[in-house]
């Protein structure tokens, strides 16, 4: 993928400024700054417990924060959560769909909750089944789906209203390589069509393959930010080297980033 830099004139699709979040007296996010240009795929990398999921949940209006400014798709998440919700999609490792219902029933049901009329919901479900290559399995209960199919259905649900910004929390965790490839293809297609994607991942290969830019999150702060190539060059090796250097236990004399 080509590397795009954020032109000063472009308003970021996602913007966090000095985001702070405490939970039970512990600092989860410690002055996080993040800007994601529209139409790009941005990876949020970090070790377990770094705060990746918290960032996504805050951006998706699911969790509150203590201070800072957060804008998604031009809407302030605190002042206009409904505006944000109308413009985002969320999908992730849990594939939040009903296991008992069929893929088609899931899509139609979520479309109704997006306030589409019955006929429009049926049409939208049929479109999305086609687009995410699920026509053959459309009328089977989701519990019989493979991991990759389930994740693709999850993506389809998140795109019911053609989200401008899509959050993917560990989209390929627990998938076999073939299913992972299927999900990557689906994400690439969405990005090519202009959707801004923010994904969290623990797989550096995934970041390398999919992302235009990567932010490395450690202990609630962004410790590095750049294209995968830039991060690799800085570490003088692979993305794994960069990751380990940036998130290793640091002495007090070494500054983060």
């Amino acid at each position: 993928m080509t590397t795009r830099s954020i032109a000063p004139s472009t308003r970021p699709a996602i913007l966090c400024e000095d985001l702070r979040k405490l939970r039970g007296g512990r600092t989860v996010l410690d002055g996080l700054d993040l800007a994601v240009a529209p139409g790009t795929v941005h990876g949020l990398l970090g070790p377990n417990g770094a705060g990746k999921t918290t960032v996504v949940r805050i951006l998706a209006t699911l969790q509150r924060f203590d201070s800072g400014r957060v804008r998604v798709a031009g809407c302030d998440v605190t002042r206009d959560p409904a505006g944000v919700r109308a413009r985002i999609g969320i999908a992730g490792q849990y594939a939040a769909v009903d296991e008992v219902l069929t893929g088609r029933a899931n899509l139609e049901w979520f479309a109704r909750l997006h306030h589409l009329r019955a006929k429009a919901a049926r049409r939208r479900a049929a479109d999305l089944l086609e687009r995410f290559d699920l026509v053959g399995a459309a009328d089977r209960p989701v519990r019989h789906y493979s991991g990759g199919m389930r994740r693709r259905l999850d993506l389809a649900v998140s795109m019911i209203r053609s989200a401008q910004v899509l959050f993917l929390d560990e989209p390929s965790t627990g998938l076999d390589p073939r299913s992972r490839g299927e999900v990557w293809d689906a994400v690439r297609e969405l990005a090519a069509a202009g959707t801004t994607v923010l994904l969290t991942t623990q797989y550096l290969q995934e970041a390398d393959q999919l992302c235009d830019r990567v932010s490395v999150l450690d202990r609630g702060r962004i410790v590095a930010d750049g294209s995968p190539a830039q991060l690799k060059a800085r570490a003088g090796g692979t993305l794994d080297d960069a990751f380990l250097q940036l998130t290793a236990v640091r002495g007090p004399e070494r500054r983060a980033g």
Partner: protein
Amino acid sequence: MSAAPEVPPVMPRPEIWWFAVDSWTVARRHLMRLLHRPDELLGTLLIPVMAVVMFGFVFGDALGAAMTVPGGRYREFLLPGLFALTMAFGIGNTTISVAEDVRGGVLDRLRSLPMSPAAVLAGRSLADLLTVVVELAILMGLGRSIGWQWHGGIGGAVAAFGLLALLRLAFSWVGILLGLLVSGPEAAMKYFALLFPLAMVADTVIPTDLMPSWLAGPASWNPLSATVIATRALFGNAAGPPTSWVGEHAALVAVAWPVVITATCMPLALARLRRSAR
């Protein structure tokens, strides 16, 4: 494929309208699940059916003797108790199903949609209320096949049905609140057995005056007791005159308890959903 909005825009409607529509949509999912998996409903009915066998037939004559009534008369007394017992075990089903939606991310997804947030929970409780109609109809049919019947008019039976549904509504909100609070469906299943004292330390299987004297008072204040005593009276299945204050004011208490429970648990559940600072 294009990023331009391919979806027709939504008609602007007042919030209360969307609350009603969204609640119905959420409820419909649970009803569709029932059609796909009728065994889930049968699982719910297994406890009262087993209770009919165990208490009605295995222990029936002995329990009837303790109450100085014949076994057949005891089974008539028992059935309204088991209707209410089914309502109590419904708490477990609601809790597990809500906890599954929290764990599986379905609840988060619903909260990220531009829908009415309160409808996420209201729809769940509406589904419980509609399911209970089916459950009670099956149990009443089963009851009739073993000799249970109501002696009052249809009006009394409808009123009794209403009291049971009201109790289930209250318990639905208890289950929703617990489902939002527990750490996961496994925890909800682990503590399922805690529903036994709620279901049985009440006027359900034996009258509270046959319990140890220190327990009889508290048991009569179990929310199930008033509903059971009131429905027994409405069905014409009472074994004798009421022996407690709650028994004498059963209809009143059978309305008051569910109202108090709902008025407590519903706002707590909605607040928990809003806060959701996991």
